[in-house]
């Protein structure tokens, strides 16, 4: 009878015996270097953009980075943790107003306003997230929607502080006591945004790949099983919600400093909606996909918007409907299809598992 036992079971599993090397370290390191190549190339190209792009496209790219950062923070929530928020713009708005107030009343010197914005976004998420994260499914959708609307209503009504529907103007960014040189203002603003974007993106990318990030994916895929493994999903979801709120606040703070005008629309449902569109377009759960998705959205809305007589939302609505059908995993899905067709087929057996809550 003992013959049926597998030889390796002679070692009691719970003792955690000697290491079994998973793969030769050198090959994994080479793969890591190869994997780091595309982001490095993209980063270098982005760094030199102001030297070869005109001012208008540079401005658009600045906006793409700002809203792209916001989209990544939403992806941390929707794609990684499986919490489909319809009101994430609330934290963007809180960040934007905080940065505006800090720049106005305290100092416009980078990076104080954006750091305060990130803190304010996180605090707002601490206060509201407790309520939202307790709920599930459609209830979560509705609660987050309400949180977003409350925030933009607040911005509208507290007009002593926020300027109401007229919004608030924001002093231009300074480094130390120096404002940006007027001739190169657009380029400097771009670099400032790029630096913040890269740092924040790297932070979120690391979080998504950390043990904590793996736990978040586990909760997204199968919350019940996580509970039986000894995880308390609420805590993880709450922390993820607060982190996402903090990064959204950071993006909002950047927006305030770049746009130099903050109004209640910037905390409203429309922003949450187009950002979700960016996730659908780019592929939720990949972090980089939503940035590409946001690029499309910003270009349609801000660049071609004037040519569409202000009916950019019509185009976005149509893109939205089409994207939901034909791009279940977004641009990232297409990229995955090109790179590893077999893996993609395996995944498609369980469509939805990737994002299901």
């Amino acid at each position, binding site marked *: 009878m003992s013959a049926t036992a597998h030889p390796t079971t002679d070692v009691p599993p719970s003792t955690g015996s000697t290491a079994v090397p998973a793969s030769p370290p050198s090959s994994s390191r080479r793969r890591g270097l190869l994997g780091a190549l595309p982001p490095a190339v993209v980063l270098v190209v982005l760094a030199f953009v102001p030297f070869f792009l005109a001012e208008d496209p540079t401005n658009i790219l600045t906006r793409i980075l700002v809203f792209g950062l916001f989209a990544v923070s939403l992806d941390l929530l*929707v794609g990684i943790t*499986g919490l*489909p928020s*319809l009101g994430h713009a609330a934290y963007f708005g809180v960040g934007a107003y905080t940065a505006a107030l800090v720049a106005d009343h305290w100092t416009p010197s980078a990076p104080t306003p954006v750091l305060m914005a990130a803190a304010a976004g996180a605090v707002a998420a601490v206060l509201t997230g407790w*309520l939202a994260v*307790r*709920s*599930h*499914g*459609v*209830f979560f*959708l*509705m*609660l987050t*929607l*309400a949180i977003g*609307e*409350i925030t933009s*209503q*607040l911005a509208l*009504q507290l007009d002593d502080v926020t300027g109401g529907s007229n919004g608030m103007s924001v002093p231009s960014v300074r480094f130390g006591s120096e404002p940006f040189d007027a001739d190169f203002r657009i380029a400097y603003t771009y670099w400032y945004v790029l630096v913040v974007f890269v740092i924040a993106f790297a932070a979120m990318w690391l979080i998504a790949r950390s043990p904590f990030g793996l736990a978040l994916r586990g909760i997204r895929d199968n919350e019940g099983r996580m509970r039986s493994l000894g995880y308390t999903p609420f805590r993880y979801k709450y922390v993820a919600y607060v982190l996402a709120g903090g990064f959204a606040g950071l993006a909002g703070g950047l927006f305030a400093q770049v746009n130099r005008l903050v109004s209640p629309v910037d905390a409203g*449902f429309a922003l949450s*909606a187009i950002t*979700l*569109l960016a996730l*659908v377009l780019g592929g939720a759960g990949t972090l980089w996909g939503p940035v590409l998705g946001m690029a499309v959205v910003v270009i349609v809305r801000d660049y071609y918007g004037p040519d569409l007589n202000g*009916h950019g*939302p*019509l185009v*976005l*609505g*149509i*893109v*939205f*409907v089409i994207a*939901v*059908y034909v791009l*279940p995993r977004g641009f990232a899905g297409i990229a995955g299809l090109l790179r590893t067709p077999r893996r993609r087929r395996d995944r498609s057996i369980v*469509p*939805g598992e990737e*994002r*299901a*809550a």
Partner: protein
Amino acid sequence: MADWFDANLVSILNGFAIGSLLFILAVGLSIVFGMMDVLNLAHGALYLVGAYLAYSLLDGGATWGAFLGALGLAVAFGLVAGGTLSVMTEPLAKRPILDQALLTLGISLIVAEVLSIIYGNDVYRIGAPPGLDGSVSVAGNTYPLYRLVLIGIGLVLAVVVWLVMERTSIGALVRAAVADREMVSAMGIDNRKVKIGVLAFGSVLATVAGVLGGPVYGVRPGLDETVLLLALIVVVIGGLGSIKGALIGAMVIGQVDSLGRALLPELASFILFGALALVLVLRPQGLFGPKKVAA
């Protein structure tokens, strides 16, 4: 107390009028929600379609013919829209709930934009049909008759919906499906047909609410979002799929909104959302929602 009541009677009546309208909207949203797990974010856009229909037909003169014509067109449009929504969301039924919500969001963006292309960005007033456009005296206050009629319609509809839900086999089916979504297919009923029926019913309620609300609230771009949000709050407070919850939630929100604006204008929104937060802290599933939703 009597003095206070007297002084705020108009606000209280206004609250009931808003409540009636919200009830009509929220019932549709709540049933679609509770039965089909579809968060229909196009619900507000459908209301807007109804309101613009009323504006188009009543602009040339507020006649009964035009008013009833608008109602008829609203019903027809609602049926078609509900069927279309049902067919469009069907391929996404197995996908995460967010995908269906996003689809309806995209549709609502398109509908709202098309309406703003047709009607521009102006705010329009809509006249009440003849005979209802005057005012009456209620305990010494003059009050628009049409709003009283709207309250009446809301109450009648509440009774009708209650009777349908409690006394008919369709109502039994709806209740069973809200309690346990597997039930519909387990009973051997074609889920798709039920879905078309439910979404058509919900959409008709939204477009009809648009026509009915027109003479009170007029019509303007962005009204869809306001209306959708209020209806969602009603559903959250009342509980998913609960008719009683929708009625009580709608009346509470109507009063909070109306009295809040009259008594504490600068705090109105806070009170509204404070009420929402309070209910959710105490009863995450809403006042009358099934327990499992919050589990």
